[in-house]
């Protein structure tokens, strides 16, 4: 379901990196990292002499004014030694990370350069290497490369490579499957250039974040190896080595071990938090909270028209949907009123971003937090959905409303058999026994013309074709006796012959049980064929409500007319250019003032750009929101400036 408007535009990369700095964690981590790096550069230059100056009378002293953290077994000042050790510790950690990144990238991207066979080989190699714990690999490498800083460096560097390579492979595979890479290949772009220009820039951000976190890990790994005595060897020293030396006298002089320990923690945290802050800043770890039923608020109430005895299936007035947007909330649906009678088929057409899907979700209470829905009236089969316990509403909608979405694969549970999924509805809502519910499921599958229904009920969703899945979804809706079927682009993903099967099925069900249908589609022809009445939506409002038969011939709103004319059909004049609607559909984040269609409308006048036309009902019950309804659109714009006023 893509009912959320497309994000206007991702901020540029530099802006996003800067935004990282503005978060508290990002700021602290960056500051910490900066301090650590500064010490790494400055400390060895300034204090190497002091750190190696022996003070024979003060061997193994505790903290004092002269030596804040005491001295070691040669009488050297521990604070200075810890500070100077920053240089080697950070340098080794960064070098190891560099080795990890380079080795990981080579392993991870070799497939792009050398073809599919090499890619498969690399993936297999990485899969095996990933299975070994990093520290085990490091110890293994340390034995091979010999004990000492160089061995530890290579060990830690290469030990991190498999995980990094795996990440790189996954990311590269994701980008490689995109069409723009195929397009570059067709353009004759060489493999190296393909990698450098197209693939790496698109995978760089997560890799950089991972490397930053990896640097923290490398720092800790070095401390561990040096502490174990297989890392940095005296007379060189890093934090791990100092920690190891200090640990010997932990009971007499704990500060000697604590000081390098604290340094390791601070630096490790700085690297890790910096990486996490980057990840959050560029949107790698997004969490989506989902609450099934959105909040529903009643606007200043309006008395419901309950006089006529025939209760409509759905009666909604002034439905407004508000979604959080970048900066300020956006309102993709702005006051939609609609009424569906029993057995009626109502179509909703409009371009993407017109709010047609959101309207359907709002009136059936399927808008999720943080989305908000307000309405002055929302009645389903006479029941006020704005008042009363949500549990009752859910039960009512659960049994009397059937939803069919564009992609049934997302609405069906892929791990459960189709029959069971259908049966569950009857078990929950009607309390049927397992066997009865299953029998009913098979019966309903037969009703939606699934061949060999009993056998297919035992199959999983992936064993169904697209059209069959859509039938199963409709069958699920028929497990109870729905009064309304809401179908959101039910046939968009299907081929025409299958589309016809599904539409045909919906039509049969509707006629048989006088079930109402709300059909949302971008396809004017489909809606015109299936529906009795059509609502045309533009920029979050209904701009016209007319009988489907008049869609192509007697539409009053210039947008409806343009929309109907823009769709080629089997009678379109082949010699004339297709009718087009100039400009583009407005962004829900910034609907223009006045009539939202005015910027694209050949009839637009000054009035249209200032005042929003109300949705007026005519004598025959048709509704239209246009200051110049019925004015011919073929002629020039001047002839319409007279306007028709607020009739």
């Amino acid at each position, binding site marked *: 379901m893509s009912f959320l408007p497309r994000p206007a535009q991702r901020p540029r990369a530099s802006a996003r990196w800067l935004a990282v700095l503005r978060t508290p964690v990002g700021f602290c981590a960056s500051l910490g990292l900066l301090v650590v790096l500064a010490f790494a550069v400055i400390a060895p230059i300034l204090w190497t002499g002091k750190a190696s100056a022996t003070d024979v009378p003060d061997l193994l002293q505790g903290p004092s004014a002269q030596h804040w953290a005491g001295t070691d077994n040669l009488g050297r000042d521990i604070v200075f030694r810890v500070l100077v050790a920053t240089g080697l510790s950070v340098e080794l950690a960064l070098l190891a990370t560099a080795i990890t990144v380079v080795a990981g990238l080579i392993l991870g991207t070799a497939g792009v350069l050398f073809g599919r066979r090499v890619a498969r080989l690399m993936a297999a190699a990485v899969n095996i290497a990933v299975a070994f714990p990093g520290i085990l690999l490091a110890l293994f490498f340390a034995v091979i490369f010999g004990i000492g800083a160089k061995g530890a460096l290579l060990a830690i560097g290469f030990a991190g490579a498999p995980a990094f390579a795996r990440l790189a492979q996954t990311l590269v595979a994701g980008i490689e499957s995109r069409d723009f890479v195929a397009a570059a290949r067709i353009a004759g772009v060489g493999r190296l250039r393909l990698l450098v*220009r197209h693939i790496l820039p698109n995978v760089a951000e997560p890799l950089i974040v991972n490397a930053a976190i990896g640097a923290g890990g490398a720092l800790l790994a070095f401390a561990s190896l040096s502490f174990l005595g297989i890392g940095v060897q005296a007379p060189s020293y890093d934090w791990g080595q100092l920690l190891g030396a200090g640990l010997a006298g932990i009971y007499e002089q704990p500060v000697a071990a604590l000081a390098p320990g604290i340094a390791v923690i601070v630096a490790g945290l700085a690297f890790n938090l910096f990486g996490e802050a980057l990840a959050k800043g560029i949107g790698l770890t997004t969490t989506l909270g989902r609450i099934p039923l959105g909040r529903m608020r009643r606007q200043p109430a309006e008395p419901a028209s309950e006089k006529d005895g025939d209760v409509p299936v759905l009666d909604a007035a002034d439905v407004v949907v508000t979604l959080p947007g970048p900066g300020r909330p956006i309102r993709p649906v702005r006051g939609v009123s609609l009424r569906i009678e029993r057995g009626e088929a109502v179509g909703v057409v409009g371009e993407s971003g017109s709010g047609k899907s959101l309207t359907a979700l709002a009136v059936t209470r399927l808008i999720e937090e943080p989305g908000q829905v307000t309405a002055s009236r929302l009645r389903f089969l006479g029941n006020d959905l704005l008042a009363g316990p949500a549990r009752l509403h859910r039960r009512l909608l659960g049994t009397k409303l059937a939803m069919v979405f564009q992609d049934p694969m997302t609405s069906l549970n892929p791990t459960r058999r189709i029959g069971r999924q259908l049966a569950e509805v009857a078990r929950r809502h009607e309390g049927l026994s397992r066997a009865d519910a299953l029998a009913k499921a098979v019966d309903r599958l037969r009703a939606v013309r699934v061949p060999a229904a009993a056998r297919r009920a035992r199959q999983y969703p992936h064993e169904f074709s697209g059209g069959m899945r859509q039938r199963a979804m409709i069958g699920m809706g028929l497990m109870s006796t729905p009064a309304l079927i809401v179908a959101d682009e039910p046939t968009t993903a299907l081929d025409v012959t299958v589309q016809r099967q599904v539409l045909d099925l919906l039509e049969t069900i509707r006629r048989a049980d006088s079930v109402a249908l709300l059909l949302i589609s971008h396809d004017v022809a489909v809606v015109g064929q299936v529906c009795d009445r059509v609502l045309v939506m533009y920029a979050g409002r209904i701009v016209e409500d007319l009988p489907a038969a008049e869609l192509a011939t007697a539409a009053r709103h210039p947008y409806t007319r343009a929309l109907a004319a823009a769709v080629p059909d089997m009678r379109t004049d082949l010699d004339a250019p297709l009718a087009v609607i100039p400009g*583009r559909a407005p962004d829900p984040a910034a609907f223009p003032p006045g009539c939202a269609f005015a910027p694209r409308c050949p009839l637009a006048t000054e009035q249209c750009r200032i005042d929003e036309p109300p949705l007026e009902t005519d004598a025959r019950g048709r509704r239209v929101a246009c200051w110049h309804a019925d004015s011919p659109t073929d002629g020039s714009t001047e002839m319409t400036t007279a306007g028709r006023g607020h009739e």
Partner: protein
Amino acid sequence: MSELRFEDVSVRYGTRRHGLTAVEDVSLSVGDGEIVGLVGESGSGKSTLARAAVGLAPVTAGRILLDGRPVPVRGRRRPVQLVFQDPYSSLDPRMTISTSVGETIPRRDPVTGAVLDRRTEVARLLELVELDPDLARAFPGQLSGGQRQRVALARALAARPEVVIADEITSALDVSIQGTVLNLLRTLLRELGTSMLFISHNLAVVRYVASSIAVMYLGRIVEHGPAAEVLAHPQHPYARDLLAAVPEAGRTPERPGDPALRAVADAEPADPHHPPAGCRYHPRCPIGPLVRADTDICRTRTPDTDHRHHAACHFAEPLGGTTERRSSL
């Protein structure tokens, strides 16, 4: 002149036992300056055929020829270009429009041999697709879907192609945008004389754009002929069913009364992994063995194409129909 020819092309994925023949023995030709519309349902192999022509899918049998020579799928010069369906995926989000289009521009003009200046070429191409040349500095994220699809078209034209393959290029666009792209396409092809293979599942769109129409079903081409001919007198039952399924406002299709006809009308599209034997359409065919008793041949024998519109149906009209034109094969 440039003619793209598929000669008995097969594309097979996977192993011998667990494989999928996406395209089987397809012969089709796109003549010079001709626009061939290729229709069929998803999974029928339309896109695979397109991808095979530009080297993105492996040709396991047969040949794809451009003017009698194999289509080059390596190196800088690529005379066959492909425009993709989804303009949100086909442009590198990190590249400016200018770089994306410029990447495809050959170093030298393939005809005159003159060295091409990228910047003027990009400006010329953007104007060709009716975009503001100032957009060259923009990133795809700043463009609408219709604008992106024009950029994708400009990028394909930048290679100075002899044949352009358009794979469902308007199906990701809103109807109001679709018209502008189709209009542009028609004008451009008329001006440049480029041949095109236009793939779409929308018959109304294909009818508007194409001069001849090929119908594909489960990896095979079942009918191919001049557009008006195929639309007016479809020979293959699948082509007839396709035409009948096109939705039209105000026309409610009748459900057949005969239960056998109803059964085939509700039949599920065949699984491409296990295509039916004989004529692949026979389980859904309204004149096939499930409806008529005398058509058992459909279950066993693959129909040949010696019929009007090269229809691969045992019961199609024989060759030499009223306006048969042997333009291809």
